[in-house]
């Protein structure tokens, strides 16, 4: 099966054969639960937590789990790495379909004995399967990431020996090949998780190798590090502006409930949490509205050149080479 057929392959149709030839096949089909309907009554309701686990004053006294698992709804989990395990504390959605599970992003700690992301994902899949009467072995896991930065793929090797798993390679070409793209970034491909459609297209600007992911079931638009509640480090201005335009065009035509980024680096009151901070007691929610995306785009169009700008929702660090100088020395005196 090549990449193209893999993307549009309807596994459910193949799994339930038209003609049942043997008794065991018939028994299997009889016990197989009805496929979940991911296409009616959209958007599927769901909720974000009021407060995420957000580090602690003393890190060695942190007793929170390495990964916080929040079930947005019955078929969608959102994972977040504990700040005491990595200050980057990225978020990682886990989307379930009838045939496949999609994991986006794998945190900033690589070793399984440091944090068992693989175990957490396996547990989520086992729970979901138990709730829905499935066999975990029948589900394929797709391990992908939003963009080619180590705080988003560090734990990818934990999945290398997992059966029935495909994981994204760590080069631009492999990333495009994974989604079968030939015209990056404009081309929008559709991934079928088994009745649940994920739309994927290029979103360069923070880095070149970045995607935007839209889940048609929850209608969450996942924008990675290109647009998130914090300091959007924009390495390539024009590609980023073009990517924003693509996002705006998308939300003009598709319904979007939430726009979600990979990190939170800002407080509820818009105060910047400096790079590397491991305790964010008043952090802002991870989800943003379409309105906030539109406002940011309008603001971005007026940005005169390199520098740091606060749009009211996010900081735009325009071609500052990952530099943040929002902070001042608190002890300065004259």
């Amino acid at each position, binding site marked *: 099966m090549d990449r193209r057929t893999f993307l549009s392959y309807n596994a459910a149709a193949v799994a339930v054969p038209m003609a049942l030839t043997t008794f065991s096949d018939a028994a299997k089909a009889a016990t197989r639960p009805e496929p979940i309907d991911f296409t009616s009554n959209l958007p599927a309701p769901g909720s974000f937590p009021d407060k995420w686990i957000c580090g602690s004053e003393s890190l060695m006294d942190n007793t929170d789990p390495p990964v916080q698992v929040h079930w947005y709804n019955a078929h969608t989990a959102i994972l977040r790495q504990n700040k005491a395990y990595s200050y980057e504390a990225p978020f990682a959605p886990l989307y379930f379909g009838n045939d496949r599970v999609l994991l986006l992003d794998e945190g900033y700690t690589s070793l399984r004995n440091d944090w068992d992301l693989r175990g957490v994902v396996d547990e989520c899949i086992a729970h979901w399967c138990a709730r829905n009467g499935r066999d975990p072995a029948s589900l394929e896991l797709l391990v992908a990431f939003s963009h080619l930065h180590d705080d988003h793929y560090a734990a990818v090797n934990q999945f290398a020996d997992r059966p029935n798993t495909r994981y994204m390679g760590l080069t631009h070409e492999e990333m495009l090949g994974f989604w079968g793209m030939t015209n990056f970034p404009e081309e929008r491909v559709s991934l079928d998780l088994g009745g649940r459609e994920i739309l994927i297209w290029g979103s360069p600007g923070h880095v070149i190798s970045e995607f935007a992911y839209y889940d048609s079931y929850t209608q969450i638009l996942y924008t990675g590090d290109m647009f998130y509640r914090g300091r959007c480090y924009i390495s390539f201005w024009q590609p980023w502006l073009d990517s924003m335009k693509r996002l705006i065009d998308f939300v003009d035509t598709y319904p979007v409930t939430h726009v979600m980024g990979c990190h939170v680096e800002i407080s509820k009151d818009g105060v910047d949490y400096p790079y590397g901070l491991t305790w964010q007691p008043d952090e802002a929610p991870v989800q943003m509205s379409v309105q906030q995306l539109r406002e940011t785009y309008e603001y971005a169009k007026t940005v005169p050149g390199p520098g740091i700008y606060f749009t009211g929702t996010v900081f735009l660090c325009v071609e500052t080479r990952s530099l943040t100088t929002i902070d001042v020395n608190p002890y*300065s005196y004259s």
Partner: protein
Amino acid sequence: MPQTPNSSINPANPRIVNSATSRSFPNGNPALGYNRAGVRNTDSAVPLHPAEPVVHDYTSDGPAPGSISFRWAYGSNVAAKNRDPRVQVVQYNEDTFVMRENVCVHWEAPFTYLLFGNKGALLIDSGATSNAKYYPLREMVDALITRWGQARGRAKVPLTIALTSGEDVAQNQGLSQFAGRPDTTIVPPPLALMKRHYGLAGSWPSGTGAIDLGDRVIDAIPTPGTHKDGVSFYDPYCDFLFTGDLLFPGRINISNEGDYVASLERLQAFAASHSVKWVMGGHIDMMFLPGKHYPRFATYKPYERVLEMEPELIAEALQYAREARGQKIMLIRPDFILFNGISPDQRTGVWPEGVPRINPPHPF
């Protein structure tokens, strides 16, 4: 390399003269062995069961011997899994202790110093965490004082607590743990009260104050510049200069460039008239690779530089502080980095000439 006990002059420390005719052993004759008659199982200069309070002789030519023979606990890749001591104690010599807060309790990982004299003890700085559950500084200090008191046959050891800066939240947070402690004098942190305590109300920032520990008199030298209430301390027994945030192997944020240069000049003049073995700062940010440093909030620092700085670095800091004056600049040197008038987040592409640039691996 085998040590040659009869080498004539130690070039690093010309005060210690070993000649065939006039031998001088400022800190004890090594030929006499470690233990006094009647003392067992210890190399201490203090008798094992003193009948009366031991009076130690703190006079010595040159710095009192001592060593930092351990490397500092440097945090861990996953901070939540760190199980190192919350307060790491290194005994430099029998009357001098260096303590460090665990990097995974607070990323500033400040150093505090506990010095003993015949009449009392001095705690310099108090760490970055007030919660004694996370950072049991008081408990550790109490234990050290009790043990030291037992060894010296003293039931009461009055404690003085002084800060290199009253306003620095990386050094004043532990102070609250000592509230209400008996036999304790805390140098008041507010600038005006602190000046009055040292008797410097009229002369600040010139002049020096003194803290008498009993035959070991610690000088308090006003050194504003990184903090407006900055104070450095000089210990004439170990010949240490405790400089806090003013000069340490790390990212030095200059808060007032005029004061900073003036304080380094004052420190240099002081070092010229006093013997200084090491400058001991309040933190370590540098790696052992020249000019390379850990960013703020780092909780895993396996390539950390050693704490102690040679006194020659005062002159180097002064030279580059003068150079940085009037500029908004981040100035990298092999053993420290100066930030003048800029954000502590600032980065620079300028690398100092003649310094090898070695990039360490980045574990994650």
